[in-house]
């Protein structure tokens, strides 16, 4: 069986609070904080994008376990904010970590679940014997139009998993997906900001796919919520994943360690994977994890995972843990945020 051999995450250091965004747009910050339960979100530096975040996450994974990059036979990067419309992020990552010329590589896009689709892809390739190790990354520098509700949540970050058969720290016991054509969220070609289909966001999109995928996985594995030590869902805000958890019968102690959106916002393709990374930071041998992503448009990928004894052999502090990245922050105001995110357009000669 295959599973996670090593993992690494990267969250940009800058943060903005909803109070600051609400101040500019004349909203009530308490209404925002209570409504979507986001207390701060990460902001990428002006010289950061999905390629830089992906490389940092991949390097953090390789710091935790010294595997030869030339044994990584596939790289798939899931994102909805790849720096190029045409030219893969995966090859930039491959070059930056020093992989071999013989390489399966591609970029994926499926809103917020493109990274977990990559995990499934490389797991299948490992299981089929096509590659020894595969690198799956979910990363985003997500977009939210100025003044739009998404501006409070759209953030930046990413996580990389190396998947293989040997020395796994966490076995992926099973994975499954659900998908349907649902108009909850989209961004048309060439448009800088996404649109959302109001009422489609909740029940027909997020809850239908996430809850169904979770139930299907528990049926397949013949498990119940009480059989899991941890559960992590895609986190578009702080409210949806907790509601999904409660609908399924999970308790706070099972989802609190993987719930990061209240502190870093929605990292889109990096969201569930970074939550899982946070769980792996603290998990013990034998821990049983249910992880379910969600991508608008819409679909969910579910994973049933068991942490192995080898996690104790890994020095998880060789790379920054999620806890450390939550502590090491620099606050910015809306003006700096707008400058960094290029919401302020400057004339020729200035930039």
């Amino acid at each position, binding site marked *: 069986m295959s599973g996670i051999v090593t993992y690494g995450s990267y969250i940009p*250091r800058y943060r903005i609070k909803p109070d600051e965004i609400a101040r500019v747009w004349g909203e009530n910050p308490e209404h925002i904080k209570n409504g979507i339960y986001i207390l701060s979100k990460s902001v990428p530096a002006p*010289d*950061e994008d999905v*390629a830089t975040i992906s490389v940092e996450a991949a390097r953090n994974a390789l710091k935790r376990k010294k595997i030869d990059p030339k044994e990584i036979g596939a790289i798939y990067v899931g994102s909805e904010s790849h720096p*190029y419309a045409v030219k893969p992020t995966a090859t930039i990552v491959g*070059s930056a970590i*020093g992989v071999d010329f013989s390489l399966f590589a591609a970029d994926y896009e499926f809103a917020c679940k493109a990274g977990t689709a990559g995990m499934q892809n490389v797991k299948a390739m490992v299981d089929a014997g096509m590659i020894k190790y595969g690198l799956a990354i979910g990363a985003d520098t997500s977009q939210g139009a100025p003044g739009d509700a998404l501006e409070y949540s759209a953030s930046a970050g990413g996580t990389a998993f190396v998947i293989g058969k040997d020395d796994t720290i966490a076995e992926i016991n099973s994975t499954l997906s659900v998908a349907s054509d649902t108009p909850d969220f989209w961004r048309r070609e060439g448009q800088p900001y996404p649109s959302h289909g109001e009422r489609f966001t909740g029940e027909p999109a997020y809850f239908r796919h996430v809850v169904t995928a979770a139930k299907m996985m528990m049926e397949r594995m013949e498990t119940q919520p009480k059989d899991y030590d941890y559960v992590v869902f895609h986190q578009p805000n702080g409210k949806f994943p907790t509601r999904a958890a409660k609908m399924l019968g999970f308790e706070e102690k099972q989802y609190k360690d993987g719930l990061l959106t209240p502190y870093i916002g929605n990292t889109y393709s990096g969201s569930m994977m970074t939550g899982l990374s946070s769980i792996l930071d603290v998990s013990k041998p034998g821990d049983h994890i249910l992880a379910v992503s969600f991508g608008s448009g819409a679909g969910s990928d579910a994973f049933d995972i068991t942490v192995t004894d080898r996690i104790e052999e890994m020095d998880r502090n060789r790379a920054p843990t999620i806890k450390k990245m939550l502590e090491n922050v*620099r606050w910015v105001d809306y003006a700096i945020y707008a400058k960094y995110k290029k919401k302020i357009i400057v004339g020729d000669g*200035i*930039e």
Partner: protein
Amino acid sequence: MGQLSRFWRESEHRYRLLGTRCENCGRVYFPPREVCPTCHRESIGKMKDLELSGEGVIESFTVVHEAPPRFSRQKPYVLALIKMEEGPMITGQIVDCDPSEVEIGKHVHAVFRRMGEDGDTGVIVYGYKFALD
């Protein structure tokens, strides 16, 4: 910019801090060299690729207030001389900090960042910068 082939040729070194080590005297060079400037002909065929760890110490630095256009969103920014763990001295930007936090002797580590882009339609150039430990 517009020097596509040059950036492509140097990208492996810039992405991975890939230098060379003279197997004759042990000195490490970055950017890589074909011949060791100390050992000269003795080093021919003995220059081996070496990926630097990215760990270093600030030897000196300056704060740039009058920035070139592509750094206008980052000014004032810090440019430093970094003495790398393996020996070479590298010039690089220190990111994600206030200039007042930067001091000679502080430890830094390399990070992967955008170095620039050729307008709205051209290629994006990536490479190393540094962040305080």
